């Protein structure tokens, strides 16, 4: 194989890898956004739970469902909020695992690209000398 064909293949590989890398970075950014949203919701739900906890048994709790304010049972409201908190925490843990995975892939991509670039540069230097 002539050195210029090798060079072109390496450069194409480099381009493909850099596309992969930018996709990975977009995925990481999206992960951060979703994480932020969930963290805010988790905080809000925990505040609500605290308020519900300090209520008397006979206090009235209402939930806004669309345009309708519906009376809720205190125990039911408690259970609902707790379930939501559990769900959001599980989602956040899943997202954390996802993020770690994505970051590892990003780092190994960067390394591979770096090595490729070195090979390309040394080939180009070799060609220039010849």
């Amino acid at each position, binding site marked *: 194989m002539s050195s210029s064909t090798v060079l072109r293949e390496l450069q194409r590989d480099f381009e493909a890898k850099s596309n992969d890398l930018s996709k990975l970075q977009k995925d990481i950014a999206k992960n951060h956004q979703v994480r932020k949203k969930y963290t805010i919701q988790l905080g809000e*739900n925990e*505040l609500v739970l605290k308020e519900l906890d300090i209520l008397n048994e006979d206090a009235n709790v209402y939930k806004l469902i669309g345009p309708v304010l519906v009376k809720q049972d205190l125990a039911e409201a408690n259970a609902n*909020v707790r379930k939501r908190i559990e769900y959001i925490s599980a989602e956040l843990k899943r997202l954390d695992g996802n993020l770690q995975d994505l970051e590892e892939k990003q780092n190994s991509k960067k390394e591979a690209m770096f090595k490729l670039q070195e090979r390309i540069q040394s080939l180009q230097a070799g060609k220039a000398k010849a």
Partner: protein
Amino acid sequence: MAAAAAAEMEKMSVEQVKAVKEQADMEVNILQDSLNNIRTATSRLEVASSALEDLSLRPKGKKLLVPLTASLYVPGTLDDADKVLVDVGTGYFIEKTTAEGKDYCDRKINLLRSNFDQLVEVAAKKKSIADEAAVILQAKLKHLAPAT
């Protein structure tokens, strides 16, 4: 801590110091925005608290005007000024007495105030890092310029 950061930045190249400064500036802006949001929320809660205070002084059956839209008010009478519905978040409303409602507002205001104070501290630290970076960047650029 600022001294250690400054020592680190002295060793870095102009590009890196610039990156550090821009990063720190961005963080300071975000923190300032958060501080503003907290201030707005706190003042809204204070308005709610004083409205409750006012409401508790009104006698039952008092005539009042109820806003239906921003420009339409309808006459009505005050029914029970003792119970209020408090929006606690995520679509839940809790019926409380006026006193409990005021207590809720005060509690939230205190929580916000302590968050505000914590944030102010963090923001101050970040700002000092950003300023350090700016100073070092200036020094490095001046150092480079006469050499060329």
